């Protein structure tokens, strides 16, 4: 199995988790296996899984994205920006999952969970824009 095929396999696995986890929760609730008085368990599980997937991709981003470019004016700054992005997405994803798991009601969790992701995106764009500006 090639590296690309393994990556594709993991991506399909992640997508399957996102689909099957809420469906499983609905089925478990309908069969009386779990109590879900607020009827929010499927939504919460989906949010938690999505947050953890963001964190997992953030974790491997520095491994996948850093390429040595001898033509690059500042390889150190470029590498640091990519590593920074990985850390930011790991923390943003974990914070997102934690909010989905703990904040009640679910509407508030849905709104608040966007904050760490939005903040993470702003930080990463800002850092990358600075590196690009320095290189040009």
């Amino acid at each position, binding site marked *: 199995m090639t590296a690309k095929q393994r990556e594709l396999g993991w991506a399909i696995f992640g997508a399957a988790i996102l689909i099957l986890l809420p469906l499983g929760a609905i089925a478990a609730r309908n069969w009386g296996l779990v109590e879900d008085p607020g009827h929010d368990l499927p939504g919460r599980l989906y949010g938690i899984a999505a947050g953890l997937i963001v964190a997992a991709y953030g974790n491997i981003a520095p491994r996948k994205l850093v390429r040595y470019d001898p033509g690059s004016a500042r390889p150190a700054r470029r*590498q640091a920006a990519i*590593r920074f992005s990985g850390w930011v997405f790991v923390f943003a994803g974990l914070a997102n999952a934690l909010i989905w798991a703990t904040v009640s009601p679910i509407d508030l969790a849905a709104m608040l969970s966007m904050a760490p992701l939005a903040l993470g995106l702003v930080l990463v764009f800002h850092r990358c824009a600075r590196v690009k500006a320095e290189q040009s």
Partner: protein
Amino acid sequence: MSSVFKAIADPTRRQVLALLRERPMSAGELAGRFDVSKPTMSAHFNVLREAGLIDASKHGKSIVYRLRMSVLEEALMGLAATVGLDLGAGVRGKEEEA
């Protein structure tokens, strides 16, 4: 994962990783920073490469190494360096038993 623990258990290899965190470097540049023989340095590079923590590419006559650590691996390395944990002890123990 045991190959990662083994790789980051050695202080010289941790120093190599710390240097590569700053920027990609050539083999000669890295070797010049340590007071060890070239074959020893080469062995350290091989351990790090086998653990998937660094990547080597040939540019002209020199081999350039770059960091290839995930966030989790970097956090583990930071923890090992800060607390002074001997993460490779278990791995070495198994190797000695075998």
